[in-house]
């Protein structure tokens, strides 16, 4: 096996099949580590990682920070609300100032698509994209696929449906790339107004009937309606959306087969998924959260192994 082929994790599209294997295998070992009484390894004790969150996040930020700490890296956190961005500083200036403090790796979340790539081209550090606008969220897709593989085995030929607000979802895009790279068949389903026009060009099936999508799939990834990214009304009412696209026990029972249920969080209980379903045996939502730390440890560890500024002993 070779080292990971990329210097930055900007998106799923850049990863090779071998990269997926490497990330998943490494994450499996880290999952064992985080279930030990002492959940740490000393691998990154001489590295510093900056988490730059230009957009709100709870789960992803905590998950990255925990992953970094479990690897013994030093961590600094930055969020826009407390920063000089508000004083007019550019992104590159902000990041270069942070790098001048001898930071080795940057985890960035930003509301603008392409910001992680822009940074990778303009600053001298390794970049991990923790979500850039409606573009990609690669670690989420990796942890979703890792969790699915734990439940369903090899994803080759498996049917995975992504339901809900696809058009605003970086999780959906990254998942489509990752699932397809792993050989799964993907369907997106939601109201037409929330499905992107280019969907078919991504090689996915498109469906507007939730029951048909459920009948087709082995697992379903329920997305949240991203009201914060909507400047117009995409559907008449939350009640109507929930009636047509909310996952309920009745709908699952009507298809008479078990399906695995994922949700990237945060869950709007009673809108896209009912509490009953979210807390059911087939939901792997909390596994996703646990695997998130292991996957992020793997990504950080594998990218860090490429920072070779120390001469060979």
């Amino acid at each position, binding site marked *: *096996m*070779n*080292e990971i082929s990329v210097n930055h994790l900007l998106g799923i599209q850049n990863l090779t099949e071998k990269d997926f294997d*490497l990330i998943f*295998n*490494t994450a*499996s*070992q*880290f999952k*064992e*580590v985080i279930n*030990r*009484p*002492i959940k*740490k*390894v*000393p*691998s*990154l004790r001489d590295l510093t990682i900056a988490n730059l969150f230009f957009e709100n996040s709870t789960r992803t930020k905590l998950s990255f920070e925990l992953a970094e700490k479990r690897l013994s890296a030093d961590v600094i956190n930055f969020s826009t609300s407390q920063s000089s961005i508000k004083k007019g500083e550019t992104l590159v200036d902000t990041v270069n100032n942070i790098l001048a403090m001898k930071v080795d790796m940057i985890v960035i979340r930003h509301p603008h698509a392409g910001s992680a790539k822009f940074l990778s081209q303009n600053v001298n550090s390794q970049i991990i994209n923790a979500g850039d606008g409606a573009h990609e969220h690669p670690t989420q897709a990796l942890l979703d696929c890792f969790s699915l593989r734990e439940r369903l085995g090899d994803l080759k030929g498996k049917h995975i449906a992504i339901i809900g607000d696809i058009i605003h979802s970086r999780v959906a895009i990254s998942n489509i790339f990752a699932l397809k790279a792993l050989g799964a068949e993907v369907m997106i389903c939601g109201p037409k107004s929330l499905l992107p026009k280019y969907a078919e060009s991504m090689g996915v099936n498109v469906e507007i009937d939730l029951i048909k999508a459920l009948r087709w799939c082995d697992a379903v990834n329920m997305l949240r309606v991203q009201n914060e990214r909507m400047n117009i009304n995409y559907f008449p009412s939350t009640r109507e959306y929930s009636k047509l696209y909310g996952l309920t026990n009745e709908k699952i029972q009507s298809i008479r087969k078990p399906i695995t249920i994922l949700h990237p969080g945060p869950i709007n209980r009673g809108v896209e998924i009912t509490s009953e379903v979210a807390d059911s045996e087939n939901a792997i939502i909390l596994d996703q959260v646990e695997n998130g730390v292991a996957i992020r440890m793997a990504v950080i*560890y594998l990218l*860090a*192994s490429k*920072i*070779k*500024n*120390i*001469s*060979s*002993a």
Partner: protein
Amino acid sequence: MLDRVLLDELKINVLLNRLSCQLLEFHGDFTNTLLIGLQPRGIYLLDRIVELLKNEYGIKDVKVGKLDTTFYRDDFRRSKKIHFAKATELNFEVEGRKIVLIDDVLYTGRSIRAALTAIDYYGRPSIIELLVLIDRRFSRHLPIQPDYLGVQIDAIEGDKVRVEWRPEKRSDCVYIEKES
């Protein structure tokens, strides 16, 4: 590369029996002992020793584990060789136990140092010992010596010692690869 046979199946078998007897002498019925094979190659030696202890010497209950030291290595970001993590399976408490680390070849001692650090993250054993099949003497970077030793050999830097086991290979054999 030129391969030379250092130990053939018969000699390895004699060594394995001797090592098992030495373990028996010091660990008795193995009640409080945990044998830990180091990934990736030490686990084969562990399996063979456990097989002998069970089948030839009647020890019914041998506690075993596998330990991968990749994340504890001191050459991360320094070595040209890339190490990939393998499974760690430690299903027994290490606290207060007698631990025997088992590896096929002892060279610089850095893997064993990593293993000692890794064990430290699990708890505080009463004793940690080291069993190796081959000791490449005069090559140590650290003050680490085996407690149970198959055979000592002299090999220069650049030589590679390769241990092969059945059923992965046709027979048990230890080779030394010399750079031609």
